[in-house]
């Protein structure tokens, strides 16, 4: 099919082109309590073609189209001609295409890539239910997706790279009926099958659900030292990936510059060291991906993003990253980090960090109020909000680590004096 597309592109004569072929397979299982709701599988192939057009002034316009695998020849030619014509109306300042790369990346030797997807789905579904043994909480429902994706990128500049990747992801809901009937939602995503990690996550979430069932709506409005854990730490730190992206810097939404201190720690608190972790060998533009230092002790080291915006800024094009790693080793063990008084917000209905405004916030579904006298009370309800720009100099991290497909780093962070709207 790629050769067919290339043949159809020739008469259109764009200044440059890129073709991405994606072949995706899945095995999917859906459960309601300990019953199988639905089995699904998927086998699809797509071709995304990006055509670039250049005008006499050196400006470049581009259009991307997605094509099905069995498109008729005449339809293919028409769609490509139409896309190339359209590109002439979306002209932007000129830029160089990504440097050519030829590589057939060696496929990772993992069970996910070597075994039938159904086998991995079986392993992970067993892991899902293995710890569904809590005395009062149980799995209400779960969804499991095992995915394998083969990608090939070919371009007019000579790039020809291919690789195979995969992922196991999904979600589950833990429920506890007494004394209050409550639930906690939890999603998961692993680049490699991780049955032990999934079982541990289920056990922890069931325990949180049991605590939420006895949580009280007693939280008073006020200012609290806030403890965030797990994926919520990654959400906070996504502020730094957002603000350092070429896509935000080029239009002036972010004023960050490489070499500048974008996070300055006050005495006794931690300077941030962050890395972008490559989870795929190439970006969707065919740019080789590698791990990169984003912040070193609060100083911005990398501006990252797609080819066009990085070229505009005179930066090396890095591709778009999915995983952020926090390299801080942490100041304190978690037990010491949550020294009283503080509020450990465990789960939210939806916790968000807005990289534009710098505001973080969400409504708590389970938090632990840890008081001066050591009393720990599960609480529910109330919302937190803070401007990270005002708090970022006073961050403390735990020594314990957390790993997921999107965030790796300290398990917990403590942020002082966060506003809470309580009962």
């Amino acid at each position, binding site marked *: 099919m790629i050769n067919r597309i290339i043949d159809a592109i020739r008469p259109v004569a764009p200044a440059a082109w890129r073709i991405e072929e994606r072949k995706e397979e899945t095995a999917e299982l859906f459960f309601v309590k300990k019953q199988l709701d639905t089995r*699904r599988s*998927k086998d699809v192939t797509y071709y995304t073609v990006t055509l670039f057009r250049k005008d006499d002034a050196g400006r470049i316009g581009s259009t991307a189209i997605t094509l*099905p695998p069995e498109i008729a020849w005449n339809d293919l030619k028409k769609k490509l001609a139409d896309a190339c014509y359209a*590109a002439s109306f979306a002209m932007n*300042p000129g830029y160089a295409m990504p440097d050519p790369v030829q590589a057939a990346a060696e496929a990772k030797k993992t069970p996910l890539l070597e075994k039938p997807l159904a086998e991995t789905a079986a392993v992970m*579904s067993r892991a899902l239910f293995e710890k569904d043994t809590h005395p009062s909480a149980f799995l209400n429902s779960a969804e499991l997706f095992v995915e394998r994706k083969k990608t090939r990128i070919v371009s007019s500049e000579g790039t020809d790279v291919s690789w195979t990747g995969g992922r196991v992801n999904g*979600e589950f809901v833990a429920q506890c009926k007494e004394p209050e009937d409550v639930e906690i939602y939890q999603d998961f995503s692993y680049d490699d099958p991780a049955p032990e990690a999934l079982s541990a996550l289920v056990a922890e979430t069931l325990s949180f659900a049991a605590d939420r069932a006895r949580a009280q709506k007693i939280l008073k409005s006020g200012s609290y030292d806030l403890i965030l854990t797990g994926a919520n730490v990654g959400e906070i730190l996504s502020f730094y990936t957002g603000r350092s992206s070429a896509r935000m810097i080029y239009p002036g939404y972010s004023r960050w510059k490489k070499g500048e201190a974008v996070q300055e720690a006050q005495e006794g608190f931690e300077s941030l060291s962050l890395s972008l972790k490559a989870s795929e060998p190439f970006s969707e533009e065919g740019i080789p991906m590698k791990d990169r230092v984003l912040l070193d002790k609060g100083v911005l080291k990398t501006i990252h993003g797609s080819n066009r915006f990085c070229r505009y800024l005179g930066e090396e094009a890095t591709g778009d990253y999915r995983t952020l790693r926090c390299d801080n080793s942490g100041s304190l063990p978690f037990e010491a980090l949550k020294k009283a008084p503080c509020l450990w917000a465990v789960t939210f209905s939806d916790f968000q960090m807005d990289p534009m405004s710098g505001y973080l916030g969400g409504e708590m579904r389970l938090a632990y109020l840890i008081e001066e006298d050591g009393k720990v009370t599960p609480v529910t309800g109330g919302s937190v909000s803070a401007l990270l720009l005002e708090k970022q100099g006073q961050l403390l991290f735990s020594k314990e680590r957390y790993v997921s497909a999107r965030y790796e780093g300290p398990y917990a962070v403590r942020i002082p004096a966060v506003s809470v709207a309580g009962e």
Partner: protein
Amino acid sequence: MFEHLDEIRPALKKLVAALRQDYAYASVLASDGDERSWSISRAGSAISAGGRDGDCGFVVRVFDGTGCGEYSFNRFSEAMIPEICRKLKENLTAAAETLPDGVAPLPTPIPADEPACLKKESEYRIHPRELGDEEILKRLNAVREKGLETAGILDVAVRMNYRSYRKIFISEHRDLDQSILWTTASMVAFGRRGEEVKDYYRSFSTLGGAELLERLESGVDDVTHVVLELLKSEPMVPGEYDCICDPETTGMIVHEAFGHGVEMDMFVKDRALARSCVGEYVASPLVTMHDGSAVDEVATFLFDDEGTLSGDTVIIDRGILKRGMCDALSAARLGVKPTGNGRRESFERKAYTRMTNTYFEGGTDTPEEMIASVKYGFLLENPSSGMEDPKNWGIQCMVNIAREIKDGKLTGRIFSPIVLTGYVPDLLKSVSMMGPDIQLGGGGYCGKGYKEWVKVSDGGPYMKARIRLG
């Protein structure tokens, strides 16, 4: 459009017939789509013809001894029918044979397959393709340039996109065919306060075409004016206040706070408090809530992704919860009729119970009368996000703007950002005034949890209620 589907229609019928030899039920949903978006901002201009909705493919559904099984694919011809049947059987068998100990099939009666046949297209005035890329980008750019004339504006990002799709559903007794075109547009103005960047957006939507541009063009002054106001906004003092919701905020409460709680696949899972409240007062008698295709908006269609015909479902009738909305599998499990709410993100994804166009009916009170009735409170505008909590009916919605009202008048002070919290029935029972005119908006997508994005619209009238703000 999408004549390709006409060519393969006989083969699709043969596929269903072949599957029926092995399974008690078989259906296929075939979809083809065309999508295009245009955008302009300081980042440049862009045209894209591939996206979330631009899917072209097939999903078959069957019932075997274990229950429901599906297979999604995007290569099809009559010659491939044996291969598709073989792959489906292999995958279903492998999944059924490797279940963890103690996991059994969920008993599911086979959904009814009553005879139905229809073919229909939605209407539009100007197809975006006829208007053309050059003209559309020119008009979007004019909107942006006008916005940038306002001093203090960092940027104005303008966007329009449309989706035209055709879906064919074939089962033993059903042959359904629909073609729909919807268009949306939006503009976001940005302003800076130190390192803090504030934004304000407006979106527009229609079950139609590029005629929507006229509405976009009339809204730019409002967007730039409000973002400058936002730069002077203050943080909210948490508390419970008399609030007036604009139609967009009413829509967010309808959709996020209440609508997700009456999606009946949540009843099957015992995840929705609403299941125990059918027949009871859950809202003020001023509240009547609908979902369905009685209105023309972006989520209007003739049949859903399981082949159930759409209609108008009254969820709340003058404060009393009458019923939920339902997909076909959940309806079979609960022993009720499906309501045409079985929707997929695309042919690649599972069908869930999903909202369509969801809204409160209008009342008799004008917005001016509502403001005049408030001693101290806020006018809430411009919802930015919301999250459902069907199990506990907790509210988490965010709005961009709360305008202060004192002694029946707007003071000019504004607060931002605002988090709405509380218990859904408390909020709905506190509704004391409803405006006469309803407005629906379908600029965004709705997720089930954090995925499965489908196009929806929501709305209602101006509404007065008691709400906890933070």
